[in-house]
């Protein structure tokens, strides 16, 4: 066989290959290839090309395609070639199409017919070529077209054909299990094929079948074991030997299958012990392939029901791997160690040195593998060192893909095993600082929650200390340039909540820093939003503490900028801030209670506190509320609605002319209001929930202010999105502000939107009540005691949420109900981030209704001709009343919750929580014994040479 050039390659082709081989640069190569493509395009479509020439063209196309250029113009010619009678040409055609076409290519349909014909051919080589193409090209739709022929070929006299037929059937199974599910018994039959090649090929599909459904193949354990035994005893023909190993690839496949079958099945595993032990002994560990088989044995041993003797052999092999000079073997050793420590953690101990060596190795792959191992063996005793190492490594690499992975691992370990909160926060700070944009936003929320809720101990002092240390560290970190956005959000939030809490830093310090942040990261709206809200909180706390508030000049300029911001969210926050500053201490304390971020907020959905007021209004002759469904039949309103809906639904251009404004028929609306209704497009579509419409009838009567307000709304509707986001309420509140000028009305309306950020938790609380019920009914009372974690951190282990203790009963129930109904997302209690995302779900807050109420009172007073001055105290009183009402409601709920055993939100109330605590918490002799044992297992014994180095890492 000529090694250079072929029999049938022209000089042209050789020249092409040569010139590409000599090309100095990629550009030169590209130029040559493009030239070639031009030539081929021209030549290939010439008529009457001799077959041999055509074949060469196709091979040249394959070459071009291989180099990464597009040769699609020639695909059709390759397809044509498969139709040829001569095997010589046909084979090239098949080769080309398998390389060119994906299984979903349009041209496949043109080949199916040929394949069908070829599968029936007398010449087995033709059949083989066709089967090769079948494996690559047949897709789900075309399986039925060739399936019967392939089935027939399973009994073909030639083993090469049977083998390929098996592989084709396997491919069908991968593509569409249902289409061949009735045929899987054929795989079992072929397992007994006389030819070892066919048997070996059959192991591939069987492996996959068993991986999907172990139980229906348990009966094959004996057969597999006996095959493996025969293979290991060299009963197969010499042709299958590979480097003096008897059929190692078949052995490996069999061991993989046995590992699946024996996993967690003592009886099946017992059948395997002898043969696996034999292989351990017989394997030649000097050759690569021998080691491959040994490695597979370890995998098998660590997967099946453990056997001490086999584990011992496995440990021996591992130590041989780790001591080897070959990096490959070290790598395999680390990997195998990771598998084995799940069963016998103590073996890690003997290999500490080797593991440390691998960690320091210049080889990146090996290092990563070692980190994977460390990740698996992390305990609360060694978490600090391991995570420290991981972060150091994370900082040193550039590969974002891996950085993300290792960052999330650090976070996971830190959440699970953190020895102290201080450490946890410091660790998270480092992770955020260096990979902040790569970690999940949830992690940031967890961190905020942890800081807010503290360690879960009843020790308030510790929590305060924690917070002030967090504040301190954040103030320091803010000095560094270029922090990731997520991290800044956390910082802003914490500074806002706790910046001034311990009195160490003055409000002007903190606000100054926050302004700096907003200025330095002016492109990041989320950060700016967080900073603004933080500023608001600081000022609110100052006001509530009855200190004098001086706004820094830079803060003032920031606010001015934000008030004119393009982002409605930022604008709203700025207005809220402005409004809050104008309020008195009492009101502010109610709106922004200090350190209350973890309190649940109750919302009275039925607005029952308004009942009296409504009653009164009705008695005075107001129209009762009519539900939307009943109203929609009415001509005039539906008219309006249609118009509104039209505008709302079509964001694109409107091509038909706008209707002339129709005079509204005033049947539905009180006489006094006609004037305004004509201009006011009934504002009701702005507020989607019915409950708001309780106050509906009185709103349009806001005649004085309506006109101006209306115009703003109109603008909003035309250009803004007509979804019901807080943006609408912003425009609403701002418009009111300009119109009313009364700070009270203003305050209340801003309160409403500001409150929204807090309220986002509310519906989830209700959901969790539902869940509690479900969980209680599913698991009974006992689930609670079992699931009750000892501390917040241990709770995180279960749900990966860090949960404060006062929430623990609930959260543990949440965990339970999560299991019961996995579709339901665990409520992220602290997710108070983007109000746009969250508050769309809840337009129901009492303050919004209050806003309507205020309007109503105003109007009422205006109608009554009462002096405007008398209004404000009324409103305030009303506001206070409702606020108090809410609080009362809250308390009442809590109290009623007490009678319900699943809710124990009140600290230290009944005996039950304490009982459950003592059963699972901390200084429990059994726990500590277990822990101690674990530590010993992992830990350093004096036997090791350099105990100091590893004490922290392994012990």
């Amino acid at each position: 066989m000529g090694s250079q050039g072929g029999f049938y390659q022209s000089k042209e082709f050789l020249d092409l290959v040569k010139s590409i081989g000599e090309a100095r640069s990629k550009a030169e190569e590209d130029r040559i290839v493009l030239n070639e493509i031009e030539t081929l395009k021209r030549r290939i479509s010439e008529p009457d090309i001799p077959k041999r020439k055509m074949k060469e063209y196709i091979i040249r196309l394959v070459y071009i395609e291989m180099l990464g250029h597009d040769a699609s113009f020639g695909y059709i010619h390759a397809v044509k070639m498969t139709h040829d009678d001569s095997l010589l040409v046909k084979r090239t055609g098949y080769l080309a199409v398998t390389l060119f076409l994906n299984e979903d290519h349009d041209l496949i349909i043109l080949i199916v017919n040929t394949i069908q014909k070829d599968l029936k051919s007398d010449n087995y080589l033709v059949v083989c070529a066709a089967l090769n193409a079948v494996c690559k090209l047949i897709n789900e739709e075309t399986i039925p077209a060739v399936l019967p022929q392939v089935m027939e070929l399973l009994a073909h006299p030639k083993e090469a054909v049977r083998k390929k037929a098996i592989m084709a059937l396997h491919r069908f199974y991968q593509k569409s299990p249902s289409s061949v599910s009735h045929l899987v018994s054929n795989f079992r039959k072929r397992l007994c094929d006389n030819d070892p090649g066919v048997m070996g090929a059959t192991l591939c599909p069987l492996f996959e079948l068993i991986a999907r459904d172990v139980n229906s193949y348990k009966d094959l354990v004996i057969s597999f074991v006996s095959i493996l035994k025969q293979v290991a005893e060299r009963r197969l023909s010499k042709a299958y030997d590979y480097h003096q190993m008897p059929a190692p690839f078949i052995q490996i496949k069999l061991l993989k299958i046995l590992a699946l079958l024996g996993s967690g099945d003592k009886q099946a595993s017992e059948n395997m012990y002898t043969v696996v032990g034999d292989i351990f002994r017989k394997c030649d560990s000097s050759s690569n392939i021998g080691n491959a088989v040994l490695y597979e044995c370890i995998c098998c041993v660590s997967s099946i029901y453990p056997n001490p003797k086999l584990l011992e052999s496995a440990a021996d092999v591992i130590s041989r791997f780790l001591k080897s000079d070959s990096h490959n073997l070290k790598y395999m050793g680390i990997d195998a160690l990771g598998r084995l420590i799940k069963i016998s953690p103590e073996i890690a101990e003997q290999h500490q040195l080797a593991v440390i060596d691998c960690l320091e190795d210049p080889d990146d792959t090996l290092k990563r593998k070692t980190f994977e191992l460390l990740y698996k063996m992390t305990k609360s005793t060694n978490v600090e060192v391991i995570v420290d190492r991981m972060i150091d490594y994370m900082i040193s690499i550039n590969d974002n893909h891996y950085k993300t992975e290792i960052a999330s691992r650090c976070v996971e370990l830190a959440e699970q095993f953190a020895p102290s909160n201080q450490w946890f926060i410091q660790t998270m700070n480092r992770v955020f600082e260096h990979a902040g944009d790569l970690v999940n936003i949830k992690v940031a929320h967890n961190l905020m929650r942890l800081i807010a809720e503290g360690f879960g101990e009843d020790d308030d002092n510790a929590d305060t200390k924690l917070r002030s240390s967090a504040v301190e560290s954040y103030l320091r970190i803010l000095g560094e340039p270029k922090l990731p956005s997520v991290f800044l959000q956390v910082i802003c939030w914490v500074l806002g909540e706790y910046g001034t809490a311990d009195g160490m830093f003055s409000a002007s310090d903190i606000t100054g820093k926050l302004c700096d942040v907003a200025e330095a990261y002016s492109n990041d709206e989320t950060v700016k939003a967080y900073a603004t809200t933080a500023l608001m909180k600081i000022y609110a706390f100052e006001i509530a503490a009855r200190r004098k508030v001086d706004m820094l000049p830079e803060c003032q300029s920031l606010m001015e900028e934000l008030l004119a911001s393009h982002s409605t969210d930022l604008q709203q926050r700025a207005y809220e801030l402005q409004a809050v500053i104008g309020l008195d201490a009492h009101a502010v304390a109610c709106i922004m209670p200090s350190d209350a971020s973890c309190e649940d907020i109750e919302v009275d959905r039925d607005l029952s506190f308004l009942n009296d007021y409504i009653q009164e209004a009705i008695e005075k002759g107001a129209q009762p509320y009519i539900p939307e469904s009943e109203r929609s039949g009415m001509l005039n309103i539906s008219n309006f609605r249609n118009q509104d809906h039209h505008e709302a639904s079509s964001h694109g251009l409107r091509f038909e002319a706008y209707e002339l404004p129709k005079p509204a028929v005033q049947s539905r609306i009180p006489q006094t209001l006609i004037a305004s209704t004509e201009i006011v497009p009934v504002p009701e579509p702005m507020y989607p929930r019915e409950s708001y419409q309780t106050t509906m009838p009185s709103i349009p009567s806001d005649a004085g202010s309506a006109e101006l307000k209306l115009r703003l709304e109109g603008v909003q509707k035309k250009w803004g999105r007509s979804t019901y986001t807080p943006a609408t309420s912003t425009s609403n509140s701002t418009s009111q502000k300009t119109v009313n000028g009364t700070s009270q009305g203003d305050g209340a309306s801003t309160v409403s939107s500001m409150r929204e950020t807090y309220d986002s938790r509310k519906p989830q609380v209700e959901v969790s009540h539902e869940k509690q019920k479900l969980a209680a009914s599913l698991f009974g009372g006992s689930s609670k005691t079992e699931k009750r974690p000892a501390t917040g951190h241990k709770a995180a282990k279960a749900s990966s949420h860090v949960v404060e203790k006062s929430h623990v009963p609930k959260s543990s129930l949440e965990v339970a109900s999560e299991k019961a109904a996995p579709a339901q997302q665990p409520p992220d209690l602290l997710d108070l981030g983007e109000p746009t995302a969250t508050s769309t779900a809840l337009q129901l807050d009492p303050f919004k209704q209050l806003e309507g109420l205020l309007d109503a009172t105003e109007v009422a007073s205006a109608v009554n001709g009462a002096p405007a001055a008398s209004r404000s105290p009324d409103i305030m009183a009303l506001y206070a009343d409702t606020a108090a009402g809410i609080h009362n409601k809250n308390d009442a709920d809590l109290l009623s919750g007490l009678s319900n055993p699943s809710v124990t939100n009140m600290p230290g109330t009944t005996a039950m929580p304490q009982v459950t605590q003592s059963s699972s918490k901390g200084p429990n002799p059994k726990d500590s014994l277990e822990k101690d044992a674990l530590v010993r297992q992992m830990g350093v014994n004096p036997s090791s040479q350099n105990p100091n180095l590893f004490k922290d890492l392994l012990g």
Partner: protein
Amino acid sequence: IHFVLLISRQGKVRLTKWYSTYSKKERSKVLRELSGVILTRGPRLCNFVEWRGLKVVYKRYASLYFCMCMDPDGNELEILEIIHHYVEVLDRYFGSVCELDLIYNFHKAYYILDEILISGELQESSKRTVVRSVAAQDSLVEAAKEETGSTISNIIALAAK
């Protein structure tokens, strides 16, 4: 196995075979990234690279890198030996194979690969069987050629009569 690549030390592609579906863009990206990673790795490091959640096993023969990409839970040494198996078969077929053989007869390298791996699974682990079946195809091809040659000469002979 997701794909098989042969890359020369200069980063030139010698053979590509894709068992999983990759678009043209992805393919060239894979090639670019992997040749960047693999060619820069020093000697005496291990032959495995973790890459996008998959593992790439590579082995260098003279100036040619053979790479196979596999699932993360596979047996790396086994893949390494499959590479070696392939190389041995190539060697047996070409008779002390060198890079030039593969450059000029890459289609034959494809045929041989097709006999060893089908849709990413090892189908035949006996070298002899592989070589025999490839040889059978070749001989048939030769026979067919001779046949056509002789019929043509027959026709010529007939025409000459």
